[in-house]
């Protein structure tokens, strides 16, 4: 349904993003993972023409058979409002502080459909129930700042799904939230996506969060895809050395039997940080931080297919030690 081909984003003379190929099927959920500076947010924004004015976007993004790159602002605005919904990291900033919550959701509905007042009210109530906001009638009369962070994010989700979009773009929607609220919001997104057959592009720096919501994951480093595939497979058995390092650096070993052994033990880390735009090394952009880099890495690694669903670009991929372990699950 969403087909990205040879998408590049330039700022000045620096190429920030270069994605050869990425697809999202109807109703599927894809997680886009990367560190700050990897270009993940810029990629998500540029899909619907919301890139910064200094960015130059080329290539092809087809949505439901329609080309979005080079599409007029008017058409893009219509697509954003009706076929693509969006939610962001900071819900309070995305909401109008002077307008009651119910009216804001109503506005989102009215953008695409003319409805009577009574219908509108019923629809707002319905949407608020769908996103599990308690006591919709009372909350609808509140201003955004009177709601908790989780409730604000639910309001934003309600607005995003008001017109039954075919794709929801979620940019770090839970980063600012507490863990228990984060779980509720992730649950909600997954449920809405399945019920409504709504595809989702979920952008995050946290592999754990991405795996909790999406079946597919695409790992972005310095603006390039380094590994794409089913989340469990990619995280359980990463091939690209960068993915491997990202997985290892995640401290999330909650309540496993090893906890008492692991306390106070250093975590594996990735040294250094993401290169600044234009400062990435030639060939494999990760090679200056990679413990396994060899001379071969000075050349751009080709995309290799593991199977029909998985591919990665690494000259020295991690050995497939866990081969077959997925079959037992």
């Amino acid at each position, binding site marked *: 349904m969403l087909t990205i081909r040879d998408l590049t984003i330039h700022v000045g003379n620096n190429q920030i993003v270069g994605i050869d190929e990425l697809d999202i099927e109807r109703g599927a959920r894809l997680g886009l993972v990367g560190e700050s500076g990897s*270009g993940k947010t810029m990629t998500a924004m540029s899909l619907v023409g919301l890139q910064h004015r*200094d960015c130059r976007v080329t290539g092809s993004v087809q949505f439901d058979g329609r080309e979005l790159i080079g599409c007029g602002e008017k058409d893009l605005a219509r697509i954003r409002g009706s076929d693509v919904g969006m939610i962001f990291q900071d819900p309070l900033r995305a909401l109008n502080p002077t307008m009651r919550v119910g009216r804001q959701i109503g506005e989102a509905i009215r953008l695409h459909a003319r409805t009577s007042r009574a219908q509108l009210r019923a629809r707002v109530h319905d949407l608020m129930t769908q996103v599990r906001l308690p006591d919709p009638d009372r909350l609808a009369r509140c201003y955004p700042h009177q709601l908790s962070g989780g409730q604000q994010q639910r309001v934003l989700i309600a607005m995003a799904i008001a017109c039954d979009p075919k794709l929801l773009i979620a940019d770090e929607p839970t980063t600012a939230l507490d863990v228990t609220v984060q779980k509720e919001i992730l649950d909600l997104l997954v449920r809405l996506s399945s019920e409504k057959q709504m595809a989702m592009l979920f952008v995050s720096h946290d592999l754990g969060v991405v795996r909790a919501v999406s079946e597919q994951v695409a790992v972005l480093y310095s603006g390039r895809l380094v590994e794409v595939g089913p989340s469990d497979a990619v995280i359980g058995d990463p091939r690209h050395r960068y993915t491997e390092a990202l997985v290892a650096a995640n401290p999330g070993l909650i309540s496993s039997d090893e906890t008492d052994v692991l306390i106070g033990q250093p975590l594996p880390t990735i040294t250094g940080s993401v290169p600044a735009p234009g400062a990435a090394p030639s060939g494999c952009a990760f090679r200056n931080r990679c413990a396994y880099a060899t001379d071969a890495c000075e050349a751009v690694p080709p995309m290799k297919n593991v199977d029909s669903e998985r591919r990665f670009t690494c000259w020295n991929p991690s050995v497939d030690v866990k081969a077959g372990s997925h079959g037992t699950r």
Partner: protein
Amino acid sequence: MAARRSRSPQLIVGAALVALLVLAGLLSLVWTPYDPAALDVTNKMAPPWTDGHLLGTDQLGRDVVAQLMAGALNSLLVAVLSTAGAVVLGVALGLTAAGGGRFWSDTLTRATDVAIALPGILVALVLATFFGPSNTTAIVAIVVWFVPGAARIVIGPARQVLAREFVEAAMAYGRSRSFVLFRHVLPNLGPLIIVMASMMFAGAILTEAALSYLGLGAQRPTPSWGRLLFESQSVIGQAPSLVVFPGVCIMLAVLGFNLLGDGLRSRLDPRHAREVVV
């Protein structure tokens, strides 16, 4: 982006106008084409380019260029002193209001709100009645008029700086509130204060002209643009240029400082200076 930083046309035009004004004013200390007070009785209300009077003479035969140059000096003097006074007092007040205890903070914030609502021109009139019209009166009036505004501009940003974590860290290593205000908050407000000062400077020039036009500012023989305007308005029919020239001077000076302020704003504001797009 580097190009955008250094070549702001506003900044260049503003700085050029201000430089012209300052040069003319300073030059008048050592040289003017004629003595600004000297009367050339044979050449009253001479049009421009008459007998070496570049912009002509006024109704008493005084050289217009000389008077404008001396007027520039007076305007600058009043503007420098009043802006400096207003900025120092306003920033001090604003910092106290932002960083003081709850009581001071509330009291001072309300007080500045009230003071802003007072019509400044009335304050000036009252002062002039008490102390008699003079440059000093004009300066005091402008300071009193501008201080609450300056404080108001500073309070919000100062509170924002105070809310940042390096302020808490400074408290944790034992720095006092006043140290934090002067060594952390003040430097961080530097760009804001510079921009504010240049805008105020423009306001001060305009206000000085208005006050001396009303007869509340500099008295004879000190030349002043505002008084030149006032004196020449009775002969506007015979010699319109006598009204036009001081008017243009005031306008250019105000424009110069406003452009300079705008230019400095976009140059010093980190949001403009370092636009990060990644």
